[in-house]
């Protein structure tokens, strides 16, 4: 959490939608990520990738998730009292991500929960869609982010 976060649990309202990015994903980055974490032909080699169902070099779905995380960090979490996330309900990889694609994230607040056992924080349910430069949704996900609440003077 940053030294002086601007956004706490209380500041998120259901229906709030924000877009972060874009960020260009390069061929070199696709291959570097895949070499370390997902070394399958469609993520490593253009010629081999053409023979796969994806029809050409494309990013590992886990790489797209990692880029989504970075865009959410840069656009939101860097200024927020984030406490991480315990889970991800679902991720759908809808379209291939290609070298040179400009990816952005559309984050929509779809719910909020305050656990009785944790008065210091709450869950912000986020729908996160990753879009490419054509406006196509390449990844659709939803997960609960944990955010600290503002400390009340009485609680100190």
């Amino acid at each position, binding site marked *: 959490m940053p030294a002086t976060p601007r956004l706490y649990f209380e500041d998120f309202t259901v229906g709030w939608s924000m877009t972060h990015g874009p960020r260009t994903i390069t061929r070199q980055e696709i291959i570097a*990520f895949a070499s370390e974490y997902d070394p399958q032909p469609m993520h490593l080699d253009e010629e081999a990738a053409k023979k796969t169902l994806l029809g050409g070099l494309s990013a590992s779905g886990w790489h797209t998730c990692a880029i989504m995380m970075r865009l959410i960090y840069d656009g939101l979490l860097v200024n927020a009292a984030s406490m*991480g996330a315990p889970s991800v309900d679902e991720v759908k*990889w809808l379209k291939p991500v290609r070298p040179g694609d400009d990816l952005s994230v559309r984050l929509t607040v779809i719910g909020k929960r305050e656990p009785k056992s944790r008065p210091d924080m709450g869950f912000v349910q986020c729908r996160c869609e990753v879009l490419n430069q054509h406006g196509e949704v390449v990844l659709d996900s939803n997960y609960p982010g944990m955010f600290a609440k503002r400390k009340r003077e009485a609680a100190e």
Partner: protein
Amino acid sequence: MKFFDDIQIGDRRDLGKHTFSAEEIKRFARSYDPQPFHMDEEAARHSHFGALCASGWHSTAACMRLIVDYHKRLAAEMIARGERPAKIGPSPGFKNLKWLKPIYAGDSVVFASEVIETRASASRPQWGIVHMRTTGTNQKGERVYEIENIAFIERRSA
């Protein structure tokens, strides 16, 4: 990979172990998740995690590497026996990913999968859909990671 027709609910596979070094945790975090508790020991000590721990997305990536390596070993064994390994299609996604406990620097996590659902693809008759629950357990025997992976796997009778 085995063909869809040869996969049964309850089939288990041991995927192997990944040790999360502080160096790798920070390197992944620098690129993809630079929250202080993934980047810096001192900052992590003051966070609710209490010590440097891996980005949740780092744990998914490390688990994927073990799955890919497992499939490559299995394919090599099948080829050595004179069989053709089944094709694996692009995954449509996953469900119910749970980061149950932090994975701290130096932790070794053992991953394993179990088949929990199989069904034919209605739209693509040459493929079957397999759901697998993959879990990660640290060196203390604590379950730290859980996910329901979904894969398209070639049918023998295509």
